[in-house]
């Protein structure tokens, strides 16, 4: 447990009663959560090893309420941790003792569906899947699809610039967002972007996306929706050698094919997922690819035929082209349950670095070595098309010291990602988890420039303050 939290502000702690009284004047009774029992649900997020009890939790139901709450916190020096569904894997939504949690989960209405212009406007607490469901009957969907889409909110997606299995073709959140309503810490409500593809001036929308709740609170969003493809089907390719799988990925892309998804699993991941999902994965290979393409039946057949032909020179031991929806679902079930299945066999932490795909064989070898040195195992699932790794470092919480070892392995893996030309996080965000590694990827000038921009929005460092930037060296407040 190596991540530090800043010391709580005693003045705020001793002022709690007054702060609660102030907040209670701004929202309905049931929107203010003060009892310890109820606050406990907001102590942590997807990074459950860390938890802090917040001062209070507020669940406003309108942009106007959010504005009043923020104005109050600004005036009283109270820190604010914005929260969606709390599925962040990097501790992005974990509170601190001297902060209130501002949750947008009650603001989950669809405000406008506009099929002619292919957009939907929603309140930010709606779930990712909820957006797609609101337009599914018309054949439309919202493209970025994190595996957590049943629970996570568009607010969290925007704050983390979340991705999904299909981002190779459709891009991540930032490529699909048209506009937001953002409330600044001083209560100012700002409309950014709109119904058109471009907005004038600096790309504030691009800046907000991925800013991890540090620039303002997003209360509404306009996102692009697309018509779903006529169909989609994966092929499953198993390889005895990691190098062959890597080379096959490169060859598919070199042939001008951009599959809608291109997922990689290593031997431990295959074994774990197969045992859980019975997807029919080959158990005698070191690496497996799931390659999915979209279109009409004939287009899919044509594309999968090309892909299989491209794979041949790399000696695939298994080639399975899905022939039915049931088979496709089974193939995906294994991959999508990777986290859950791993959780059944071990405790694990999920890393999220990105590497240049050409470095794959080297990086996987090094990951094995790093973990082995600590006596731990790693299962790798990974978005092969874009180099976004998800090594799951497995450990046993009941063995003293193992969690620290796992954290150390995770840290070394992320440093490795940076060393080979990649980055610390491809889609999960920095949060508290990677905060202290930031200076490994960025030098002082890089970080200072980011902090200066941050300070334009929140000069007092009250918004989600424990996150993203290393605790020492903070300036511009």
């Amino acid at each position, binding site marked *: 447990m190596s991540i530090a939290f800043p010391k709580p502000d005693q003045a705020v702690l001793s002022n709690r009663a007054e702060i609660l009284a102030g907040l209670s004047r701004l929202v309905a009774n049931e929107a203010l959560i003060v009892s310890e029992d109820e606050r406990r649900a907001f102590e942590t997020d997807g990074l459950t090893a860390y938890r802090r009890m917040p001062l209070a939790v507020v669940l406003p139901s309108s942009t106007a309420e959010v504005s009043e709450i923020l104005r109050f916190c600004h005036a009283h020096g109270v820190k604010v941790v914005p929260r969606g569904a709390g599925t962040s894997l990097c501790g992005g939504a974990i509170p601190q003792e001297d902060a209130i949690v501002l949750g947008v989960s009650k603001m989950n209405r669809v405000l406008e569906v*506009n099929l*002619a*212009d*292919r*957009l939907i406007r929603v309140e930010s607490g709606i779930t990712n899947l909820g957006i797609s469901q609101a337009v599914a009957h018309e054949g*439309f969907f919202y493209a970025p699809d994190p595996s957590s889409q049943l629970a996570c909110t568009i607010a969290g997606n925007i704050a*983390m*610039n979340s*991705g999904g299995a299909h981002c190779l073709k459709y891009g991540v959140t930032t*490529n699909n967002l048209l506009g937001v309503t953002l409330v*600044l810490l001083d209560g*100012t409500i*700002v409309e950014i972007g709109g*119904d*058109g*593809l*471009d907005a*004038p*001036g*600096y*790309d*504030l929308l*691009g800046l907000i*996306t*991925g*800013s991890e709740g540090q620039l303002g609170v997003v209360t509404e969003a306009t996102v692009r929706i697309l018509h779903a493809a006529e169909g989609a089907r994966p092929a499953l390719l198993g390889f005895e050698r990691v190098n062959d799988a890597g080379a096959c990925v490169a*060859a598919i*892309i070199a*042939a*001008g094919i951009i599959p809608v998804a291109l997922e990689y699993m290593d031997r431990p991941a295959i074994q774990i997922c197969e045992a859980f999902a019975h997807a029919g994965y080959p158990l005698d290979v070191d690496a497996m690819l799931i390659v999915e393409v979209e*279109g*009409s039946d*004939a*287009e899919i057949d*044509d*594309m999968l035929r090309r892909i299989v032909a491209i794979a041949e020179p790399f000696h695939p031991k298994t080639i399975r082209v899905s022939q039915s929806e049931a088979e496709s679902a089974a193939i995906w079930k294994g991959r999508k349950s990777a986290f859950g299945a791993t959780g059944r066999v071990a405790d694990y932490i999920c890393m999220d670095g*990105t*590497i*240049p*795909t050409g470095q794959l064989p080297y990086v996987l070898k090094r990951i094995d070595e790093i973990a082995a040195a600590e006596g731990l195992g790693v299962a790798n699932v990974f*978005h092969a098309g874009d*180099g*976004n790794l998800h090594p799951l470092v497995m450990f046993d919480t009941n063995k003293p010291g193992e969690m620290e070892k796992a954290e150390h392995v995770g840290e070394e893996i992320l440093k490795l990602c940076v060393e080979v*030309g*990649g*980055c610390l996080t*491809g*889609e999960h965000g*920095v949060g508290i988890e*990677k905060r202290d590694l930031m200076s490994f*990827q*960025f030098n002082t*000038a*890089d970080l*200072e*420039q*980011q902090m200066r*921009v941050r*300070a*334009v929005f929140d000069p007092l460092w009250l918004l989600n303050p424990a996150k993203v930037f290393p605790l020492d060296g903070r300036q511009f407040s």
Partner: protein
Amino acid sequence: MKVYTPRDESEAATIVAQAAAGGLRLAIGGANSKAALGRRMEVDSRLSSTQMSGVTLYEPAELVIAAKSGTPVSEVVRVLTERGQELPFEPMDYRPLLGTRMEPTIGALAAMNISGPRRIMAGAARDSLIGIRAVNGRGQVVKSGGRVMKNVTGLDLVKLLAGSWGTLGFLTEVTFKVLPRTERMATLIWRGLDDVRAIAALSRALGSPFDITGAAHLPTPDVKGSRTLIRLEGFSVSVDYRLGEVRRLLKGAGSAEILEGRGAESLWQSVRDATVLQDHAERAVWRVSTAPSKAPALAAEVARALDAQWFYDWGGGLLWIATRPEGDAGAAVVRAATRSAGGHATLLRAPDAIRDTVDVFEPQSEAIMTLQRGIKASFDPAGIFNPGRMYAGV
């Protein structure tokens, strides 16, 4: 005017640090091919990237290319073409519209967030730009992003620099995600549709599963001459299939002919570069971004008040309007129409005298202007980079 042409990033940083210390205002650019765009500004010297040139990294299998900012776009395109790849966002070439000759640089593509017809499918420059290095107004080298496509580490300064028109930093290196060129491109053309029917047809097609990569409508004074274009790209078999499906989907719009090869390429080039506007090199030219369904009414409102020509790209989401280069070049009318439709208008081309008196970029809310001024000061506290190019004080 003195022109600084640093040969590398550290030389650029030194020049900027000295300029900042002396309060020397710098015009930031590459080949200066786009000086006629944006607000006019007063500067003391020019800082140009033209001596910083060359592709620094190209990994076709990873779909990534990096180049120093002064690299000619044509050089990047040549290198990509050799390996059957391209910049996904189909960048507009401003030269025909601006009547300039200078070879544009890759840094300027990023700094101006340029895009083209494929924007509807593949995004703008900002969506493909995955990494930047830049010198900020303090003379510090700052990097953001990198060479991998998935990267959410820290604040996304890449997006801020893209489309900042040289007001935040002097880009020294840019890294783009690229895509394979497709095997085949085919265009469907309908004739004789009025604006309302045409945009409805384009919306229908764009709301289909057929991956449309171009959707434009080119009206003519006599509606009989108007053309409505839909472009499909991909493997040949797939293009054939989708041509059939889109035709079927839009049979209410009449029958469509198919155009392929050089003719289709130059047609899309003229849409991309706005040269389908007659007398484009003489007129004032507006670029209006709005919701597609609002565009026909917006154009009609402008046409009622002004002698204007126009055409639609992005399925109607981008409206190009040419007006007389006189008075306010139609600013009052265009802006009022844009306001009521929702969207924003940029005066791309106009005589200097008009650009001096008219807001070139859409005026913004005070809240946004405060943020923009703050961001500007955070990068360039002395205000030496392209002062006032976008907005007064920015």
